[in-house]
């Protein structure tokens, strides 16, 4: 059948030719009935610039002298419980860069050893041993985290969950999925698609990030508006504690009011008090009909007004409401080169709306009514509606490719914050003003470090991404932005990390979002379960 041969030329014919990375992902697209399946595969790195060692970039951070240095006897022990394919050692020609460097290439550790166990029992033995020997460990999932939490700072051992990657069980009646932590999100979602279900969260890194990784970071992503946070959808976890003990709540029920809800402590713990090895999660039925519309509006006020109207008119079928500023689209245009932008004219702000439901006709009518009203009363100036799956996926690209595009010029400083909706965009304006005032920003002048400061994000969740696209990482830029950004957010009663977590980048800034009592209890818990502080040191608190 030519359908299969048509696919390639059609895509190459540049309708959807966006990047080789996304092209290869599209070929792996899941055969499902509806919905977006076309995701950019997160490349190993998003920039060619070689990162500096974290230890050099941050000379004030010192290796904790209480940690043991890896010795031959330790290797012998690991060899006694793991097979060859489960151990990767640094060699003259192999510096384990894939595990030492983060996705942004902003941080680089110096680990000499990566362990990739295939069983929970092995994870337990490894941690027990490391705890006794005071060997520091970094749990690592898909290594797509954006705050430097997933890579070592010094010589910590990398405990990679990549090979713990089996689906354990799926109940097609309740929709409860049980799987290993190392299952790649996209694979979990494809598996669910076969059964008519959907993973209740989704993000641009889905081709690489792990189910355990998103739980460990409590990632928010694109479907939060519809399905809520992982604190609600995760039903149970299997976690190996630093002393090797295994906490198992995989058989948890949807309703269970007996005792403390211990699993919650690990959701968003970023690998600091336990290694997640198994996840049990409640998944909703996969919507049958998706619609996507891409709109241009005049101001941030109009974005808010459209959001209110969308909630009222679309209510239960609204599944994503994303906004993007003009500069974010300009950078993406630059990056996607030949792909024409959905809207002919430029607008100060853009909105992507997705609806998903069980009945296409019903959804079409609702969306149409809403868009007509918004257009007639002048809130929306222009827009397009996807007419087929290809168009639908291509429209999503203009939101999904922003992270990659903002990085393509060299590097990016990323701030992911929660703010009251009315103040959401004020941060981008303030950052632009500050960078301009310091003479650091210019789109044309390549001698300036900053290319552009852009804003986009999940309006539905009050979540803004401020990306400062730079030609190179520099102390001047970092000093101009930090703690400035955190102070601004704090002054508006926002959170300095909406969904990416604290990791290494935001460790020192937790005080802007958590009060003394909260920080004290976090530290007490950490000390209680990880008294030797071997898990993910130098990060979080």
């Amino acid at each position: 059948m030519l359908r299969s041969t048509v696919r390639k030329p059609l895509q190459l014919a540049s309708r959807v030719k966006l990047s080789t990375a996304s092209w290869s992902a599209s070929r792996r697209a899941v055969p499902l009935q509806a919905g977006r399946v076309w995701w950019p595969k997160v490349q190993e790195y998003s920039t060619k610039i070689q990162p500096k060692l974290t230890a050099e970039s941050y000379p004030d951070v010192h290796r904790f002298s209480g940690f043991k240095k890896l010795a031959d006897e330790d290797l012998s022990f690991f060899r006694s419980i793991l097979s060859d394919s489960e151990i990767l050692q640094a060699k003259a020609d192999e510096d384990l860069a894939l595990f030492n460097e983060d996705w942004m290439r902003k941080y680089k550790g110096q680990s000499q050893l990566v362990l990739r166990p295939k069983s929970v029992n092995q994870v337990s033995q490894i941690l027990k041993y490391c705890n006794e020997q005071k060997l520091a460990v970094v749990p690592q999932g898909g290594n797509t985290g954006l705050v430097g939490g997933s890579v070592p700072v010094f010589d910590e051992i990398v405990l990679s969950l990549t090979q713990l990657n089996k689906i354990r069980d799926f109940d097609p009646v309740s929709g409860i999925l049980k799987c290993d932590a190392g299952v790649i999100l996209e694979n979990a979602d494809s598996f669910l698609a076969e059964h008519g279900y959907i993973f209740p969260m989704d993000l641009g890194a889905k081709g690489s990030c792990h189910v355990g990784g998103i739980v460990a970071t409590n990632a928010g992503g694109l479907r939060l508006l519809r399905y809520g946070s992982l604190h609600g959808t995760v039903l149970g976890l299997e976690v190996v504690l630093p002393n090797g003990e295994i906490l198992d709540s995989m058989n948890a029920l949807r309703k269970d009011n007996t005792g403390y809800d211990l699993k919650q402590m690990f959701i968003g713990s970023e690998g600091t008090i336990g290694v997640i090895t198994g996840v049990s999660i409640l998944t909703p039925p996969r919507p049958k009909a998706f619609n996507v519309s891409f709109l241009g509006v005049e101001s941030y006020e109009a974005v808010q007004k459209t959001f209110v109207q969308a909630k009222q008119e679309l209510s239960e079928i609204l599944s994503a409401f994303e906004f993007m500023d003009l500069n974010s689209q300009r950078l993406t245009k630059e990056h996607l080169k030949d792909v024409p932008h959905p809207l002919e004219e430029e607008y100060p702000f853009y909105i992507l709306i997705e609806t998903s439901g069980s009945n296409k006709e019903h959804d079409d009518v609702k969306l149409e009514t809403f868009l007509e009203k918004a257009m007639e009363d002048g809130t929306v100036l222009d827009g397009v509606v996807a007419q087929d799956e290809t168009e639908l996926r291509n429209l999503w690209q203009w939101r999904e490719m922003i992270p990659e595009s903002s990085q393509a010029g060299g590097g990016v400083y990323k701030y992911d914050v929660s703010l009251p909706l009315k103040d959401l965009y004020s941060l981008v304006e303030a950052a632009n003003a500050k960078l301009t005032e310091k003479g650091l920003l210019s789109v044309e002048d390549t001698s300036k470090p900053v290319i552009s400061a852009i804003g986009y994000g999940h309006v539905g969740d009050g979540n803004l991404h401020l990306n400062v696209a730079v030609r190179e990482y520099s102390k001047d830029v970092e000093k101009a932005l930090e703690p400035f950004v955190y102070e601004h957010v704090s002054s508006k009663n926002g959170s300095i990390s909406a969904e990416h977590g604290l990791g290494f980048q935001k460790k020192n800034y937790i005080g802007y979002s958590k009060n003394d009592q909260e920080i004290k209890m976090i530290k007490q818990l950490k000390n209680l379960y990880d008294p030797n502080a071997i898990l993910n040191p130098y990060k979080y608190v």
Partner: protein
Amino acid sequence: MSKSLRILVPVKRVIDYAIKPRINKAGTGVEKTGVKFSMNPFDDIAVEEAVRIREKHKKLVENIHAVSIGPLKAQDILRTALAKGADTCSHVDVKEAELEPLAVAKILKEMVAKQNANLVILGKQSIDDDCNNTGQMLAGLLNWPQATFAAKVEIDEANMTARVTREIDGGEETVSAPLPLVVTTDLRLNQPRYATLPNLMKAKKKPLEKLSLSDFSKVDAEPRLKVMKVEEPPTRSAGIKVGSVDELIEKLKEVKAI
């Protein structure tokens, strides 16, 4: 008579090209329930080309008329065609019947007469049956020249001719023909635009003519082919890993490949 172009663009509703078709339980065809349908991508390109010709030759194009032969739902893709720039359209309701290319071509021939069209732009094939016949048959029935697999279409207003660059094995071929003409589109011809909101709203008010098979009494739409069986292509068995070159050679010998 002043020179003018009346373009007919046939469009077909097919299973969305991004969706993997599955064979129904009975093995008689492709499963259609609960599956997303859209406009055949080649036809989307045909609509776009008609609109671009008008944008380039403002006064020349009198009308772009889209026609779809298919079930009631085919009206959805006609609305899309209208939103993307067609002026008027006709739906020939054939219920759930699947017409063969010859029957389609005969109906289109009558549509050409009805619309007094002098240029037909249609997809080189539809991605459901992959026949790649309709355009050629239509040209034959009309006794018009045909330029298939078009990668570029240029209209010469003065002489009322068209120059069409065609995709052929290993290169391109440029042909020229006087109008009236049948053009079938290839993938590289253009990149279809999105349907904008204002145009979607306008499309609702554009005329849609409702016809049915009985309006084409001369056309025998009875199928001449009988589908015996529909099967998935055989799945390829998984590969194996070999440890050494010697082992590879041994394995190849085993299967008599060398």
